[in-house]
């Protein structure tokens, strides 16, 4: 993974921040970041969800997101935080029923080395994607490659939550 990726640096600062730590249940893990453009500024949304395996031979069961953070894409400052136990944007989702399993079929046969390589390549493209998104352009090759990797690696069970947060981003990926 490129150490020069600016998206990575912002993501890292947020994931290591005190505010993220204090406002996130201990048992949760972060989703892939979802780019959002609001008033010509870039933001990144994260969903924190529980993934647990209680028996050795089972896949990890994924549960619906518990909290959402939106951070400034430039400074990693938190601009929006929602605790879904207080303000539930997805009331149709059951808290205690698994929404999916990890690994999903697209990556189930992938070697660990390939998985990490693909994830790194995906994150490296965030810089270009966000730039393109901000300038309202669409480099079809860039978006095509990004979209292919994003859908390959992202947990399908999380997509409905992500799509609601940034519909224009997902519309671009589907075009």
């Amino acid at each position: 993974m490129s150490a020069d990726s600016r998206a990575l640096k912002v993501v890292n600062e947020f994931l290591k921040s005190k505010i993220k730590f204090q406002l996130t249940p201990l048992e949760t893990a972060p989703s892939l970041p979802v780019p959002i453009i609001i008033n010509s500024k870039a933001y990144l949304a994260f969903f924190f969800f529980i993934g647990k395996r209680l028996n050795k031979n089972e896949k990890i069961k994924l549960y619906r997101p518990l909290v959402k953070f939106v951070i400034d894409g430039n400074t990693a400052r938190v601009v929006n935080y929602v605790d879904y136990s207080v303000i539930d944007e997805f009331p149709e989702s059951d808290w205690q029923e698994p929404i999916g399993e990890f690994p999903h079929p697209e990556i189930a046969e992938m070697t660990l080395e390939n998985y990490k390589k693909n994830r790194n390549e995906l994150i490296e493209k965030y810089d270009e994607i966000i730039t393109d998104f901000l300038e309202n352009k669409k480099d079809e090759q860039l978006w095509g490659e990004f979209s292919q990797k994003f859908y390959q690696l992202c947990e399908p069970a999380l997509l409905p939550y992500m799509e609601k947060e940034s519909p224009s981003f997902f519309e671009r990926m589907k075009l």
Partner: protein
Amino acid sequence: MDDFWDNADDIDSNFYTGEEPSSHPIEIPVNPFAEVDPASSQPDIQTGDLNGFEKAGGSDYYLSNMEGPEVSIPDLKTVIEENSGNEISLTSDTESNKTGDINILGGSTETLEMTNHFEYSSEESSPGNIPESEALSQIYGSPESDMDYWVQQLYPDTCAIVSQKFIIEDFVGVDLTEDQLRDMAIDKGYYTPGHGTFPYEVGNIIEDFGITVLRNEGNTFDDIVEKLTNNQKIIVSVDSNAIWNGSDSWSLIDLLHMPGADHAVQVIGYNSENETVILNDPGHPDGQGMTVPLNDFLYGWDAGNNFMVSTIDPAPPSYA
């Protein structure tokens, strides 16, 4: 657009890239047993009685006061049961670490398959104290007695509740069920089913039992060792991938998106000889006395902001 990334240049990126976090200088406090004369206090590591094994319990037999990681020796159970009442001794093949001999007093010698090297000591550990055999191998804390409180969590989001249960039972000396504490946490608003526990609310249940705790981030491993030496009890937040699979040897099934702390465990010991941290991990089927290489632990703990909930007072000796 130009200012989009401007402020991000000096941010440390090692967390997300999977590189090793900055190292934690480790200065181990002086071992209170360091002045013990090994020649005069060397325990007999070749003999033991059946009670020593039976107390480990479970479907498999675990030897807890040994060198190296905990090992399961399934065949030992059969041998012990068939020779109930007899004195036995164990010797191990330290070259291969694959086999060991179990000697039945006045009887036969059988060779067992092992998963690791072990030595068994017949000496009992004392609550709140480091047994001499462990002191010789630089074990801090009371992992053997703390392991007795381990159970696996029943729900996907109750690791913090169960970690607190270990400590409460240690201090109070009563058996509590996970559901009892979970219901209590629900009633008091510390926990909502399906939501887990927020970091700074870990310890609330412990405090409701009259045990004062300290919660803080940015701790060092020295802090852990010091508290283990004082028999204070410790819960930390960690990245479960790192402690279950190692910082550089994850298996795909345990790799879930981006790294980050997602789990709470009790730290019950540290073996400075082989540099392993001993945990009571409620989220793992083999979490009772789970041993984790120090570097993997530090990696996983770093992801959790080096957060620690610790008791102010040491556990009472009578219950430890």
